[in-house]
């Protein structure tokens, strides 16, 4: 049934200002701390010593070391994308076969690492991959190797760490579309004579390709801007472009070159973003149907690539192969899922165990256990003030980004207006534009305003990177929202404001909570922005941690990780508890209503018909 599309001009005029008000706050903040500074960054790259020139770019392109950096960065992004896909696809397939309730439990095991700070995860890999780390010692003990393998401070270490960091993103991107694939199609394929493996390859795999493309795009783009993991786990010479930019700005104060490098990286990301926009706007585009693939000719059968004689010769072989695969399918799936979970969760476990170490230095497993590092943390004013600073700024930023992004998401989902898709892409772009570049941009924006190194600056910057999460979550939540409920409420006599407060918002509570949580974490875990805009009186926790990791690798970081971890589990527990409690309250609702006791005092003041 068609729902109210504004069809007569009178209503369009009435609605237009509403859209403006819904979108304006997000646009203003994005313009001030993101778009204009980025434009300045790009513009700056065309100047050297005050003169308009292309020499910044030309120098870069001509420089062999920069070419190496670019190639290395691309190769790294490709390799990381490949491995996350390789590991993530079977895991997502496994999860999509489970009943939603069970899948939710396993997805939680994927989500918790995803929400854990990249710093902490990279730190855990230092513990695991070192020459005397758990992995090397296991290898030695089993006898696979005779001397410790060099797993860290080279590309191997960087890959292991980055794949672990990107894996949850890939699994999420694959899981949702896989879950939507109609399973009866697989049964149909089998009843038509395919075994399970061929049903998978002929039916499921092609249908899951859009998800593969979407997930790979996301992972590839966000890998291009990786900073923390390569900086901590990679070799000293293995610079990625993000590190190169950071060094230019922070250590060399070479803004011209940094602008040029940033501009080139930005160009690549924006280009990929624009080319792949269809994949990324799936969330809000109207036509879910695949684009018409052009005029089909012939009898409607695809032309086979193989000559018929060869195909017939090979058929028994493929048949046998797929029988074997059918047989191996389940064990292989379980194995893949188990490996993924181990890979994702092991670093977390290491961090928690390490936090209780009694040793004065980093060694795993700890020789003895104590709370000394917890005591050290709570007695060190620098740690505590950093924690407080981060919590405060990220908290306020989460509220701010929800306040500006939620109305914009409402407009995106529920209204039709020119530039809708562009606005959506703009609002989610901080997710893929490398943080380092955003960092340089906000630095450029804040210095003239005098808010670099102040809480205000951090709140604005954190809100900026929180917005994409709020937008994506709200768009998903609103699209799933059954608008009949709002119509029903209006039909039963609720004013538009009442509909919002009694039906729409209560049903969106889970969305609001996740939006706040994700926006908070986006700011709280940030390292790159902090690198540029922190100051003597404004040091967020991740910057404090980075300094600590660089100066002395001690179990201190593990304590921070464990505390954050506990907070995260606390939030999940609270969430679970609240929904339980709500269920209980409902059971009493009838009694309260029917006995005339107010269920929610003063909650019912409606419009008369």
């Amino acid at each position: 049934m068609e729902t109210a599309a504004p069809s007569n001009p009178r209503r369009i005029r009435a609605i237009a200002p509403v859209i403006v008000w819904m979108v304006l706050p997000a646009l203003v903040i994005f313009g001030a701390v993101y778009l204009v500074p980025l434009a300045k960054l790009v513009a700056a790259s065309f100047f050297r010593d005050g003169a308009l020139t292309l020499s910044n770019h030309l120098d870069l392109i001509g420089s062999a070391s920069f070419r190496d950096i670019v190639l290395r960065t691309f190769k790294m992004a490709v390799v990381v994308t490949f491995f996350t896909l390789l590991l993530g696809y079977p895991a997502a397939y496994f999860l999509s076969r489970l009943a939603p309730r069970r899948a939710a439990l396993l997805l939680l095991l994927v989500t918790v690492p995803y929400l854990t700070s990249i710093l902490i995860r990279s730190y855990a890999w230092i513990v695991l991959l070192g020459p005397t780390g758990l992995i090397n010692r296991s290898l030695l003990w089993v006898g696979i190797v005779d001397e410790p393998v060099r797993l860290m401070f080279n590309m191997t270490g960087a890959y292991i760490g980055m794949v672990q960091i990107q894996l949850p993103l890939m699994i999420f991107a694959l899981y949702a579309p896989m879950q939507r694939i109609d399973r009866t199609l697989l049964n149909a394929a089998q009843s038509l004579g395919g075994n399970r493996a061929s049903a998978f390859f002929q039916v499921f795999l092609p249908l899951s390709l859009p998800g593969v493309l979407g997930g790979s795009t996301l992972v590839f783009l966000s890998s291009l801007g990786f900073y923390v993991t390569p900086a901590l786990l990679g070799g000293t010479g293995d610079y990625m472009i993000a590190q190169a930019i950071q060094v230019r700005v922070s250590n060399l104060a070479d803004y011209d070159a940094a602008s040029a490098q940033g501009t080139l990286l930005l160009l690549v990301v924006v280009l990929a973003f624009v080319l792949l926009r269809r994949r990324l706007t799936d969330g809000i585009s109207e036509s879910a149907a695949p684009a018409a693939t052009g005029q089909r000719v012939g009898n409607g059968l695809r032309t086979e690539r193989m000559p018929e004689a060869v195909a017939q010769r090979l058929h028994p072989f493929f048949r046998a192969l797929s029988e074997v695969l059918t047989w191996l399918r389940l064990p292989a799936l379980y194995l893949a899922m188990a490996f993924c979970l181990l890979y994702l969760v092991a670093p977390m476990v290491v961090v928690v165990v390490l936090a209780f170490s009694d040793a004065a230095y980093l060694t795993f497993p700890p020789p003895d256990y104590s709370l000394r590092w917890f005591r050290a943390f709570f007695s060190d004013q620098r740690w505590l003030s950093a924690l407080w600073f981060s919590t405060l700024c990220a908290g306020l930023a989460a509220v701010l980004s929800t306040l500006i992004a939620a109305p914009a998401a409402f407009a995106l989902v529920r209204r039709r207006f020119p530039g809708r898709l562009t606005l959506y892409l703009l609002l989610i772009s901080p997710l893929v534009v490398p943080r380092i570049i955003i960092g340089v941009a906000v630095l450029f924006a804040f210095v003239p305003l005098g808010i670099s190194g102040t809480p205000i600056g951090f709140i604005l910057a954190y809100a900026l990177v929180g917005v994409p999460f709020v937008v994506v979550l709200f768009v998903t939540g609103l699209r799933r929202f059954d608008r009949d409920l709002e119509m029903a409420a209006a039909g039963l006599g609720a004013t538009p404001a009442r509909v919002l407060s009694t039906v729409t918002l209560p049903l969106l509570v889970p969305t609001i909570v996740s939006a706040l949580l994700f926006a908070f974490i986006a700011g709280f875990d940030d390292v790159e922005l902090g690198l540029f805009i922190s100051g003597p009186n404004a040091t967020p926790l991740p910057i404090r941690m980075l300094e600590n990791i660089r100066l002395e690798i001690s179990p201190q970081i593990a304590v921070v990780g464990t505390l954050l971890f506990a907070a995260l589990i606390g939030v999940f527990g609270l969430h679970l508890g609240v929904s339980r409690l709500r269920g209980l309250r409902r059971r009493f609702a009838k009694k309260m209503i029917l006995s005339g006791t107010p269920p929610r005092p003063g909650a019912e003041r409606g419009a008369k018909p």
Partner: protein
Amino acid sequence: MTLDTHQPTPAPAEDYLKVTGFSKFYGETCAVRDVSLGVREGELLALLGPSGSGKSTLLMAIAGFEAPSSGDITIAGRSLVELPPHRRGIGMVFQRYALFPHMTVAENIAYPLRRRNMARREIAQRVQEALELVRLDAFGARLPTQLSGGQQQRVALARALVFQPGLLLLDEPLGALDRKLRQEMQTELKQIHQRVGTTMILVTHDQEEALSLADRIAVLDGGRIQQFGTPAELYDSPANAFVADFIGESNLIPAKRMGADGTSVSVKLNGTDIVVSVPQANICAAPSDDSLLLGARPEDIALSPSASETGAVVVQTNYLGAMLNVLLELGPYQIRARIPARLGTGLTAGQSVEIGFTPEASRLYTAT
């Protein structure tokens, strides 16, 4: 029997709800074109039509979720068009019920009362009465998801009736239920209608549902009213070929006008030698039309054994207990007949039979 029922009836003065000249365009496409109809107080009216006929659009416009492109909608003489949905005071049961998942059954039913700022004691009492009306007294504390489809349907009905609206709209209310439950709910809906006496408009694509529930039916197709009348009028004297085929079953056979006298028109079925003389009263085509459709319900076709090879040939018979369905081939056409089973004991596939069209039960329509 009146023949002009397919014309929108000029709404008599006592009509409670009046729709006049209603049209709805989505860009260039027209969903509903110039519809007028009236609903009397206490009446149960069905809007019947295939999907895309515009029936839901019309319902949404009455509820206030669609603005008319032109035309007016009035209740008791007052225009609704400028009123937002929440100020129309019209009850509505949605196709998928639209029960608020975060509220209990009782809270759902109390919702419209709270919006009207009713005293709590009164709310409690009204909720209880509404629950009793739909026989769900014990279910007030449940969440909608803890109810079966039929129970959810009844909660939706109770919620839409509890604030005693002057008009209740039902959008395919039984569409999501299985066959047995649907029949039960039909009975219950009819009983509730009789008890509360609220004026109701029911949208459905199921002709059986419309025939058994409604006092009057408006048949819609292509955004226009094809016919508006009582179930018996629609069944016995369809106004056009669409209604003849949509309500019940009709054989529609192309025919040519041969001649007419004062009381009847004779037509010859194309490709055969059969001539049928149809009484003037059964003619739903302009006198100038020469290409016509002869409409005859299967039960109005008589079969008699024939020796000649020129008549109809039995293709297949289906035994239904009391009746026998016979599929026949008559020249280029397939004809469906339904005869009392005892009259058809000798019929077998391949047999030639004589077809008789009862003139009084045959109708002539404009060929479309």
